[in-house]
């Protein structure tokens, strides 16, 4: 037997049930059930979201790696370029410091005219201590002109071409420079050697030479101008049976690190060869 309700009554019953459920829910009677459902829903949502992100990552990461690699390459290239610039600038700072020191030296010694030059090479033979500089006869450089740095005497021009010159260092074995000891005003000869060491010879036995004495050019012989700093005495050898004393000299200039030099262009070396007496027939 089937019980049938009129449609309007059904609607009223459903509405009442719905209102009752809403009222129960608002009254907090469904809290355990709603929290259970919501937790279930959140967990399900989390699971789906996590899987989605994993799949999305899987599908998109290769593209990101490629773009990151490209970006990384670009940045590495930029870093390399900046490092090159840093090295270049450091080099320029070093050069500027050296040139600044040379300018100070030129200002402190206004009696001479100078031409600055870079050392661009060394003599191919290990027996010779010569350097090659990047200025020559076109810049007014002539053989015999003295070469200095802010630290002191370097040598003199040995040979010249249009745009370069070869400089014989004072440390060369064939170099001989007339010098004087500043403290005792004693004349002596400065010689180079095959090892690049400097030594003083022809010092009078009566002269008082002590370690630390400053050695300057004397200007005798006409090859170098006077009063250019050469170095300091580091040891003295005085033997009673020898005619002269000898001394070892520590040069003021570091000849292994010559980068820039000054050529004194208004000093004309004097050739005293005709004045040297030769034995008669």
């Amino acid at each position, binding site marked *: 037997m089937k019980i049938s309700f009129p449609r309007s009554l059904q609607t009223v019953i459903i509405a009442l049930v719905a209102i009752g459920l809403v009222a129960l829910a608002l009254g907090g009677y469904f809290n355990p059930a709603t929290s259970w459902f919501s937790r279930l829903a959140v967990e399900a949502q989390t699971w789906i979201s996590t899987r989605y992100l994993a799949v999305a990552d899987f599908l998109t990461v290769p593209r990101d790696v490629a773009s990151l690699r490209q970006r990384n390459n670009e940045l590495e290239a930029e870093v390399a370029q900046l490092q090159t610039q840093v090295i270049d600038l450091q080099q320029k700072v070093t050069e500027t410091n050296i040139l600044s020191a040379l300018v100070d030296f030129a200002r402190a010694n206004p009696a001479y005219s100078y031409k600055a030059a870079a050392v*661009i*090479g*060394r*003599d*191919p*033979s*290990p*027996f*010779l201590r*010569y350097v*090659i500089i990047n200025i020559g006869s076109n810049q007014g450089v002539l053989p015999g002109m003295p070469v200095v740095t802010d630290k002191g005497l370097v040598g003199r021009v*040995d*040979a010249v071409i249009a745009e370069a010159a*070869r400089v*014989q260092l004072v440390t060369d*074995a*064939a170099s001989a420079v007339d010098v004087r000891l500043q403290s005792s005003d004693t004349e002596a000869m400065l010689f180079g050697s*095959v*090892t*690049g060491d400097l030594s003083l010879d022809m010092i009078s036995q009566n002269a008082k030479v002590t370690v630390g004495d400053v050695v300057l050019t004397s200007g005798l012989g006409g090859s170098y101008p006077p009063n250019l700093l050469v170095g300091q005495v580091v040891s003295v050898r005085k033997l009673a049976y020898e005619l002269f004393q000898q001394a070892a000299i520590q040069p003021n200039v570091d000849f*292994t690190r010559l980068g820039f030099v000054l050529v004194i262009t208004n000093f004309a070396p004097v050739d005293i060869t005709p004045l040297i007496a030769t034995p008669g027939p």
Partner: protein
Amino acid sequence: MRRGILVAIPVLGLAIMLQSSIIGRITLLNGSADLVLLVLAAWGLQERVKSAWICGFAAGLVVGFVSGVPWYIYLVGYLVLVGMSRILAHRVWQAPLLAMFTVTLIGTLVLLMLTYFERSLFEVSLAFNLSFVQIILPSILLNMLLAIPVHALIRDLANRLYPAEMVR
């Protein structure tokens, strides 16, 4: 031969510049390597190379001009070196490195002894013991060390210029 000269002259020019600007600054005691000598030795030891004499002559003149040593010293020294390397190229061809070491040793010794005697006789008296210990021996050692890479490079260059004929 023309192709060999066209390649060898720039290589030697580069070697002279490197020698003057870099290699000459790298010293052991007071000796230094001679890159030009090594290039000439290695070039002369390549059997198919025909331009070794011309290269030796040109390098001798240029280095003699650059150096404070009289020009004929390098000219003679390098020509002796090329002569030795040409002789050994035909006789010790199965041991090219041995030939390179031999030419380097004797060539360096000849060149430095020539320089020593020229300076001692005409310019300034040099103590032989000091010169030998401080300059000649270290220079020989440095040249021997550089001989292997230079020989390898020059051999590759020569092989590219003068490829060996295919044997069927």
